């Protein structure tokens, strides 16, 4: 079905997520890139455009000195939680325009242990905000889901079930960081971090890398792998009225989130509706984020999550399998790599190569959504 302007993912590569002492983020990126090239059946010399980045582990184009100095135009991306999504958006645009035939996209990161400690001054806020004790991402997630749970009658049990599913899927993923199953009771009984979210409902900053090879038009058919078409990629930032991290105040007038807008554009450009999605990966920085993003993306209605999740609908064998590789909760969060990890997982599921965690039903349409500070979201629609 490929036409001249079609863009497909023709190769994927990953460096395992987790903790990897002695390996730099850049080295992980290069390893993921080599694996993606091998999967695509091409060499680095065949790539005529590359984009990539990390949030905290260096300039992606430094990896060309590891991969080889071929003169390829390489765009470094540093765009917070949308770093991978932005690199993918850029490569997609270059391919669609005909400026390139084969592109490599790479995202990697390596964060120190524990929660991030950003400084208010870097976010345009006075030092009073941090000194008062308000400069914490975990507070934001807790405040957002607490309100959402009250408005849409979401239970603590549902938050725990999201995390239990993540660890069950992670246990089936050799590249995940957390590979031990935890029960709903273990998760609810764990140390409270920020009410209503316990320790195991949050992801941790981690390490890892993912690379994708994309091709356009006739080049797709010359390559060995089953192509997974990138039908759309959409990237949006927040509008006035959306509720975002590090907000000393929020307007009473509310607006659709960056995710809502990016998802709507991605579905429209793909000509595919949320109801057609067979498998989805959504940002699960914590359990509540997965719950809210399911509705913000249009994959279900606001409030429907309670019955959908309680009935097992988002498990591997459910109506709408979500975060089939364990998501951020089981894989950890290397910021630059997360968005591309989601795309890689959808590619594997659509190819039928996801091994122990392969969704049993036939999957033809996949969806990904990455979201993060300071209110950015990137979504993709992929098909076979």
């Amino acid at each position, binding site marked *: 079905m490929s036409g001249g302007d079609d863009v497909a993912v023709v190769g994927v590569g990953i460096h395992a997520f987790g903790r990897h002492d002695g390996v730099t983020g850049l080295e992980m990126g290069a390893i993921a890139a080599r694996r993606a090239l091998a999967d695509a059946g091409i060499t680095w010399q065949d790539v005529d455009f590359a984009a990539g980045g990390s949030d905290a582990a260096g300039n992606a184009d430094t990896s060309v000195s590891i991969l080889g100095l071929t003169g390829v135009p390489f765009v470094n991306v540093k765009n917070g939680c949308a770093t991978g999504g932005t690199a993918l958006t850029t490569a997609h645009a270059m391919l669609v325009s005909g400026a390139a035939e084969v592109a490599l996209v790479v995202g990697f990161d390596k964060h120190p242990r524990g929660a991030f*400690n950003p400084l208010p001054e870097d976010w345009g806020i006075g030092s009073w905000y941090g000194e008062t004790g308000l400069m914490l991402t975990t507070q934001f997630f807790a405040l957002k889901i607490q309100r959402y749970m009250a408005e849409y009658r979401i239970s603590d049990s549902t938050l725990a079930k999201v995390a239990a599913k993540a660890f069950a899927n992670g246990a089936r993923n050799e590249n995940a960081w957390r590979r031990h199953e935890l029960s709903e009771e273990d998760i609810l009984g764990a140390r409270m971090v920020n009410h209503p979210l316990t320790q195991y409902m949050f992801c941790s900053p981690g390490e890892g890398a993912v690379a994708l090879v994309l091709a356009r038009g006739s080049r797709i058919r010359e390559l060995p792998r089953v192509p997974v078409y990138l039908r759309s990629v959409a990237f949006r930032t927040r509008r006035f009225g959306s509720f975002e991290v590090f907000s*000393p105040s929020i307007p009473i007038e509310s607006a659709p989130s960056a995710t809502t807008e990016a998802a709507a554009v991605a579905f429209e450009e793909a000509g595919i509706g949320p109801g057609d999605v067979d498998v989805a990966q959504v940002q699960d920085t914590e359990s509540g984020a997965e719950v809210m993003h399911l509705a913000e993306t249009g994959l279900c209605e606001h409030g429907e999550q309670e019955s959908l999740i309680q009935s097992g609908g988002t498990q591997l064998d459910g109506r709408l399998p979500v975060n089939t590789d364990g998501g951020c909760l089981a894989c950890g969060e290397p910021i630059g790599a997360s968005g591309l990890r989601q795309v890689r997982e959808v590619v594997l599921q659509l190819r039928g190569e996801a091994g122990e965690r392969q969704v049993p039903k036939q999957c033809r349409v996949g969806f990904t959504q990455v979201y993060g500070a300071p209110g950015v979201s990137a979504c993709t629609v992929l098909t076979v």
Partner: protein
Amino acid sequence: MTETRTLRVIDPDVIGGTEDEPHLIGSVCARCGTVTFPRQSSCPRCTSEDVQPRELATRGELWSWTIQCFPPKAPPYLPGGVEEFKPYGVGYIELPGEVRVEARLTESDPERLRIGMPMALTLIPVPGAPDKLTFAFEPVAEEEE
């Protein structure tokens, strides 16, 4: 008492008034009426640069809440704040017709917090710098409403 008391607040651009009757300083857009906190030099809604400072309401309703159960990292928290850390409440308080303000809460017992409860502005010592004051919201007893 004729002694004048200097307001020892954490940031005089954020908190105004007196220690007994403090208020938060926001801004209001002259074109579209949008209220922001803290003060901004332009309107995030309509992009107008015609914005004026505004003394915000000191009472409102709890819109959402959480309990901060682990000590924040220093910086941006103060090292003394980490040493004396005890779990504290955090919430957004909806000031009617204005804006929802994020603040520490004087209440840290999850059983005693509920969305919609009335809250009032107060000042508390800055954790780790007791000679300075920051703002917080405290539950208002029902009979005071």
